[in-house]
């Protein structure tokens, strides 16, 4: 299997601060990669570069060998790079179902259809409902997104990403603020996608147990730079990672 996503010397300076600094990685197709690193290490910024929200000062991004560095977020999504957001980013005054439906609509390529009524697109609604079930949010389908609790919004965020059915899924702290009770369910969802073996997944998380359980490899960002990239066991043993990122708490996880 080849590399689906590659970055070469990816660098971005934001207001004098080098948020991502010369990161070169290659992610294999169908691979599950986790990104960890201290707060402000540049993980989200790295995602923003991959998904096109930001464009790099230097370096390039290749999707299946094609240079996508200068493509807009829209076009990258269409080419198969989908993402969820760390700060919940939904359509506040639309219902939960409508939120997901938009993603399904985009996935189905229904974009400039102006003259047919929406209700004609049954399959779209059906699909949206399925995705909501997947993330345990079907009971809230009719609520406005702004009326959801924080954890519920996180689930909606994931449902919207899944609905895009992109080849690559970029997940930015999907379970932050989700209740202990429900994290396993979401982990399950992600795991199932992984097991189906159709998608490449990149995950940012601070929950080490989850990372250890899911990932094929972990890359560590530190001050914008790539500190390490390797299999999970190796990474957790890395001393810098232990002292500067994991700290003492980690022992409790593994214990």
């Amino acid at each position, binding site marked *: 299997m080849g590399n689906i996503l590659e970055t070469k010397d990816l660098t971005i300076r934001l207001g004098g601060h080098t948020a991502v600094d010369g990161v070169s990685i290659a992610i294999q197709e169908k691979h599950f990669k986790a990104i960890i690193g201290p707060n402000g290490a540049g993980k989200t910024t790295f995602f923003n570069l991959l*998904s096109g*929200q930001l464009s790099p000062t230097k370096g390039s991004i290749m999707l299946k060998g094609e240079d996508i560095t200068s493509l*807009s*977020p*829209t076009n990258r*999504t*269409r080419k198969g790079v989908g*993402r969820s*957001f760390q700060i919940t*980013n*939904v*359509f*506040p*005054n*639309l*219902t*939960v*179902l*409508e939120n997901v*439906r*938009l*993603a399904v*609509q*985009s*996935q189905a390529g*229904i*974009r*400039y*259809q*102006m*003259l*047919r*009524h*929406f*209700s004609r*697109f049954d399959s779209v*609604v059906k699909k949206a409902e399925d995705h909501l079930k997947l993330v345990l949010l*079907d*009971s*809230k*389908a*009719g*609520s406005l997104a702004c009326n959801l609790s924080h954890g519920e919004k996180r689930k909606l965020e994931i449902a*919207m990403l899944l609905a*895009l059915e992109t080849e690559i899924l970029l997940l930015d702290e999907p379970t932050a603020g989700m209740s202990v009770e429900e994290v396993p369910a979401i982990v399950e969802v992600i795991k199932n996608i992984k097991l189906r073996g159709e998608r490449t997944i990149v995950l940012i998380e601070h929950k080490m147990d989850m990372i250890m359980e899911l990932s094929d490899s972990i890359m560590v960002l530190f001050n914008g730079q790539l500190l390490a990239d390797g299999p999970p066991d190796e990474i957790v043993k890395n001393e810098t990672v232990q002292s500067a990122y994991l700290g003492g708490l980690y022992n409790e996880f593994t214990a």
Partner: protein
Amino acid sequence: MGKRYQLSTLVMIIAGIVLLAVPYINDSRSFLILMTQIFIFAVFAMSYDILIGFTGIVSFGHAMFFGIGAYATGIILDRFEPTVPTLLISIAAGILLAAVVSFIVGLLTLRLKSHYYAMLTLAFSGLFLVAAEKWRTLTMGNDGFTFRVPDILKDRMDYYFICLVVMFIVYFLLKRITQSPFGKVMVAIRENEQRVESLGFQVLYYKIIASVIAGVIASISGSLYVLSLRFANTSVFSMDTTLDALLMTIIGGVGTLVGPMLGAGLIEFAHHWLTELAKEHPIFERWLIFFGILYILVVMFFPAGIIGTIHGWGRKRILQRKSVKEQKSPAG
């Protein structure tokens, strides 16, 4: 949603039939003119609703498209024989020009956000106003000029029907557009532009298309407007014209389409009624005060506009019923 959609269509059809019958019940010309005026402004306000209500773009210069239609029709009919082909050409000319201008203006939404965009549109329409003032050989400046219309438009009753039909066509067309997948994306842009982008939609295209739709329809309403007056002057480009659309849309309820129509009716009727009162009762001599109070009261009692607020009540009831029955929510 599906149900409400059908219900609203039904209501509209009934309203349409009633309005078609009106001239046979009350054929007072000035009443017909008032109604015609309402239909024309309803079209204009609906075009504005596409921007403010569905795409979330606030423009302070919508009069520019109204004016483009008005002048295109006025000037061409004034310069050439007032025949039906000339008339159609004149309307088409307005549409074409409005499309081009609204395309350019729409492009600028790329760079400018919210207030800044609103003010830029104000600047553009201001420039059109100055141009109309200055190009006196064509426009006669703010005194304006009168012109002749094709004979088929002479009869006020026929013109009433024409405007009524145009209003309904525009309504159903826009309704369809806003209920289509395209329309759903427009609404999403209003809610969260950046998120729409990362879902794989080209936001700019949507905004430009919305801007062009709004511009073209505004231009049509401008054409209808001068045809009803047989007179054109610079007031079509004025800030007041934009404000009229803004007021009608907001009073009726943004993002509802029916709202702007209702708003147009309400404003015109309130206006008519207050000025009538002003003649009879001296306290209404300063009737504009009551007009101002009307706006204030609408905001107080119908915060989402009249239709918007009523929809809200409906929605609340539905939700309450749902939560009582603990049903799974059907499609929103």
